């Protein structure tokens, strides 16, 4: 019996714009994409009984985003039982890629952003940064853990300290 090795399965990504930057979200983490009208209140939308706590991604990434466009969408995310929602400027569409088409973030980027992104995708004439959904939802994990009242659990999104000397990095 001959075993046939199958190539790695393609991955699907939702390409969105946040401010003027392309971001890619892993389809496996996406529970839905809704308009602001469909959501009602963008603060912690509740869909089918599940609360998707609102995450201010632009703030966390320090991206200038003029919120409130008619094209804005709320993306519902879920991973390992943790839910969250992010507002994006526009949704560009779905992209199916072979894993090898996801480029690693250049090693010269050595700050906490290494945890923010899982890589880069060539998109149109630009690139889309693949968001690490675990990091996006980390804030939710911390909130859930904090609300459990057990205390003593450090927040997962703390930025490591970096040394900076002149123009040297890393």
């Amino acid at each position: 019996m001959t075993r046939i090795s199958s190539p790695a399965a393609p991955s699907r990504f939702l390409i969105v714009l946040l401010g003027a930057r392309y971001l890619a979200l892993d389809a496996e983490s996406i529970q839905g994409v809704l308009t602001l009208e469909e959501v009602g209140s963008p603060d912690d939308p509740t869909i089918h009984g599940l609360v998707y706590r609102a995450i201010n991604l632009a703030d966390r990434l320090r991206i200038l985003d003029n919120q409130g466009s008619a094209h804005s969408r709320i993306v519902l995310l879920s991973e390992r039982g943790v839910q969250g929602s992010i507002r994006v400027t526009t949704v560009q569409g779905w992209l199916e890629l072979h894993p090898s088409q996801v480029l690693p973030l250049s090693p010269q980027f050595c700050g906490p952003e290494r945890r923010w992104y899982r890589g880069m995708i060539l998109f149109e004439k630009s690139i889309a940064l693949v968001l690490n959904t675990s990091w996006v939802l980390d804030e939710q994990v911390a909130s859930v853990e904090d609300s459990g009242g057990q205390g003593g659990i450090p927040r997962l999104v703390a930025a490591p300290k970096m040394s900076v000397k002149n123009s040297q990095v890393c």
Partner: protein
Amino acid sequence: MLRTGQNHHRGTARQSYQLLVFFVGGRRLAVKAVDVSGISQWAEPIPVAGRTPFITSVVRQGQTVLPVFDLAASLRLTVQGSSPLCLRVKHSLGEMAMCIDEEIPVLHTLDPAMLQTYHGKDLPADGSYTNGLDEIPILSVSQLGSTE
């Protein structure tokens, strides 16, 4: 996209240094030619939100994506000219791009006897040399990504 400097030493027995002299914010800097992988027109950088000092964007050149080291910002200068250039350098972690002034870089051959220690603290340097009243630092590309 290079001019040839006028101070070539022809037929010297000692090993001379091949340098590329370029400008950032009107300031003259040098880099070892062996550390340079290319020069091209500067393309619009793509911002990458992060906290790595002076590396906050990438440039796309075809299928290649290069991190940008903002040399001008690290020197508190502003790149001059309406058509800046992209200097690609060979960094130990991979190629990097830097935006430099539009003035065409010059190849320069340096006699090792002219090499001196650079005492400035504003950029990592492999040394410097004097040209008239100017001290021209030789940028240490490898140290741009080194840990302290």
